[in-house]
């Protein structure tokens, strides 16, 4: 039985650059392209029509492109933060302002972060001022091992934040998953398998997969994926199913490998169990999140070709599942050939990403520790998370054809003393003001001799 597809907006609409994108060139700067290479001194970046047209040394600025002298500054691609909850909350402990968890929802995998995103959230504004131009966002698991579907967003000031909705599914399979599933890892793994089986069956019966008219596979960030939840289908479901119809539908693209499955696990044994899922569900497009003991199974992760979004500086046995945590984890995995991005969820705020990357550079000079080169460290917060997110070559890099997300820093971007001075998204220069800058300016002095501080704005 064929379902009728409700196709979402086309890629052209979603990725078109705002009309305000301006051509610009920055010269004489230290340019780091984000691809893992070392920074280039006295280099130039040219952006036209919202896209990078050149980046590097010996670049000729085309006539008519406004040039600014970048002497003393560094230029990088925008930081790509993954995995975050940007735009989903205002105050963490104020429940009514916080859309990250849905403990009492009847849905799990079907939950979709996209319509909840608030591009005016202070955390979006503050992260943008910290040089972050793109982020993967996801709900947090609360009612099930499935947290729901994450989105890829930009942090530009325009109202269109979501660039790719339903970009991935997030599932908990470690200690947290065990608790959510009913009390043990056995329950979590059983729940996962049952869910994937139900989704697989639903996908076949609804025509979402396997049918002659099934939608084209979506493997890059360019397209808006079909929302399988909205497929109209008369498919009968067994009477003993556990998943709601919506949850089953949401997992169809996961089973089909069209939507990546982000799996949070820490323990080496749990990582092995996740890699083994492919024996039962060969099309799963896995991404491992956390991986605190990843260094112990780095060769296996590398052989499986599964990318990792890892905590950079976690080095304590905070849970029994991460007894072997070390700050050398990412360096060792990278040395083994694993594609590793720094996990923005494992720090107080996503704007700490450059600091955490810088710490991995610091490890390179600590005896017996494994760190990253400077270029690799920048890549771990730019091009690599972009690749994992489906935007390889388009985001997180400064090279011809890439999207014009550019950050100009007042110094080495990985150094704690540096900060962005200009941030571009899609070639559009962004405002960097926010609640914090307003408070800073008001309380620059404490003089209330004429009027109370409330008039100082």
């Amino acid at each position: 039985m064929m379902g009728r597809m409700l196709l979402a907006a086309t890629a052209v609409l979603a990725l078109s650059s705002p009309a305000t994108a301006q051509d610009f060139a920055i010269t004489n700067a230290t340019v780091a392209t984000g691809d893992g290479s070392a920074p280039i001194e006295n280099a130039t970046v040219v952006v036209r029509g919202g896209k990078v047209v050149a980046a590097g040394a010996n670049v000729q600025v085309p006539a008519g492109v406004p040039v600014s002298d970048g002497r003393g500054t560094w230029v990088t691609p925008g930081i790509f933060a993954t995995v975050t909850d940007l735009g989903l909350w205002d105050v963490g402990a104020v429940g009514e302002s916080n859309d990250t968890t849905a403990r009492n929802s009847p849905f799990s995998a079907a939950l979709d972060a996209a319509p909840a995103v608030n591009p005016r959230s202070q955390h979006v504004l503050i992260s943008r001022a910290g040089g972050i131009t793109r982020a993967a966002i996801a709900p947090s698991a609360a009612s099930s091992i499935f947290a729901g579907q994450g989105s890829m967003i930009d942090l530009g000031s325009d109202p269109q934040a979501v660039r790719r909705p339903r970009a991935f599914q997030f599932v908990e399979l470690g200690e947290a998953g065990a608790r959510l599933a009913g009390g043990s890892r056995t329950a979590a793994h059983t729940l996962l398998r049952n869910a994937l089986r139900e989704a697989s069956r639903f996908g076949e019966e609804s025509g979402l997969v396997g049918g002659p008219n099934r939608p084209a596979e979506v493997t890059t960030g360019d397209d808006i994926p079909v929302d399988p939840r909205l497929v109209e289908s008369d498919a009968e479901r067994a009477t003993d199913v556990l998943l709601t119809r919506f949850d089953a539908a949401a997992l169809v693209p996961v089973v089909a490998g069209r939507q990546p499955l982000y799996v949070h696990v820490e323990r080496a044994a749990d990582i092995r169990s996740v890699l083994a899922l492919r024996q039962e569900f060969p099309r799963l497009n896995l991404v491992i999140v956390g991986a605190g003991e990843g260094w112990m199974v780095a060769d296996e992760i590398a052989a499986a070709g599964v990318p990792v979004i890892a905590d950079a500086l976690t080095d304590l046995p905070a849970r029994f599942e991460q007894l072997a945590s070390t700050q050398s984890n990412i360096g060792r995995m990278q040395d083994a050939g694993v594609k590793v991005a720094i996990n923005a969820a494992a720090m107080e705020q996503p704007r700490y990403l450059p600091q955490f990357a810088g710490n991995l550079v610091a490890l390179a000079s600590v005896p017996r520790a494994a760190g990253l080169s400077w270029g690799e460290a920048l890549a771990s917060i730019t091009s690599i998370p972009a690749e994992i997110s489906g935007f390889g070559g388009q985001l997180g890099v400064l090279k011809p054809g890439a999207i014009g997300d550019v950050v100009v820093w007042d110094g080495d971007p990985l150094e704690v003393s540096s900060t962005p001075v200009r941030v571009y998204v899609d070639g559009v220069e962004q405002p960097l003001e926010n609640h914090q800058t307003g408070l800073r300016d008001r309380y620059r002095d404490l003089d209330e001799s004429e009027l109370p501080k409330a008039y100082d704005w």
Partner: protein
Amino acid sequence: MRAAIRVLLAATATAALAACATAEGSGDSTQSASAYDYPDTPYPSTYRPYPGAPTALVGATVYDGAGGRIDNGTVLFADGKVVGIGGADLAIPAGYTRVDGTGKFVTPGVIDIHSHLGDYPTPSVDAHSDGNEATDPTTPEVWAEHSVWPQDPGFTRALANGGVTSLQILPGSANLMGGRSVTLKNVPSRTVQGMKFPGAPYGLKMACGENPKRVYGGKGRMPSTRMGNFAVNRQTWIDAREYAEGDRDKRDLAKETLAGVLDGEILVHNHCYRADEMALVMDMAKEMGYRVAAFHHAVEAYKIGDLLRENDVCSAIWSDWYGFKMEAYDGIPENAALLYQAGACVVIHSDSENGIQRLNQDAAKAQAAGARMGIEIPDAEVVGWFTLNAAKAMGIDDVTGSLAAGKMADVVLWNGDPLSVYSRPEKVWIDGALMFDANDPQRRPVSDFELGQPGEGDVK
């Protein structure tokens, strides 16, 4: 070893009010009985410094913690004490081991004024949740040292990655009065007594704002509001004063702690986020006859830098945490710099088993935020935010916190500028004993908990 510690003391409330603030808020220190002698210390420190060789650190850039910087400096220590600090011309006595610090940096040992290591240890399982006696809004009778698990692996990370040599372990903030803190030397030990900083004054952890009213309001009992917080606090202080002014014959653990505060022997460390609440707490302290040593977290301290200076109260803060709760909504990265500009005392703290490994970086972030708004603060002053200023607010500044002759040889040799993200501790001495050496795989503590586990003895 009996270090005669002078406690930051306000002999009377009047004296406390009269205390004039200095730029960095050291306040008046008047002689008092050593806390070591205080009859209220039935669990005395058994810590003794480990053996160390007379050492001369030469050729490094030295930050003394007190605002001084010496390029190509020399630091001498022996028998657990700093012997001298000076330039390249400082004579090195015979028998000293020279450590070449060329291209490196030396600071005093890092001090964290706000830690829960040991009372919220890792692994962070419920069985280890020993930081909040959240069964009554005022529990000044509990002592953090009775919760500290010396095998918390977090101590070793704070040493190796953070250069932390001393730290204050506080009870949590569920209660208005959470109990006594304990100050530790960051030395591995089988017992907490073996870590206790000899002679350090006790602290009383207090908390205002959301936490107490949420915890107890949620139980349907007082306090459930901020005004309830104050009412419970004030009545508790009034009762304590009555006890303190009496013969004190009847043992009362709670009131003994509060009487210690009123006596100026025990220092108040007050968790408080909002500026308006800090202002009220400072008035409550005047009303009841005590002083606040430091507001902890203090994300809005920048709004009242003048009041904090006038009241000689330090602000122990993160560089830029904000937004995780309503009372943290107005946190800004310029907090420390604005306080510094106002002449108030700045301490950078962690409240985190992770952040304690990077207090130097946090201070550098706060410094940079200031520089961007035109507040230039010398590196040597910023180093004081996680060394001497912390020691002052903890009442141990006459024996540690800076590199000065006669002080404890708590010293960190960094492999680069400690205000850079790229630098790490290379060697850490506590009382002149080498307790961490990045170049020696064995000179690294490993907690009992980690023996036989994956990653035992790893670089971490």
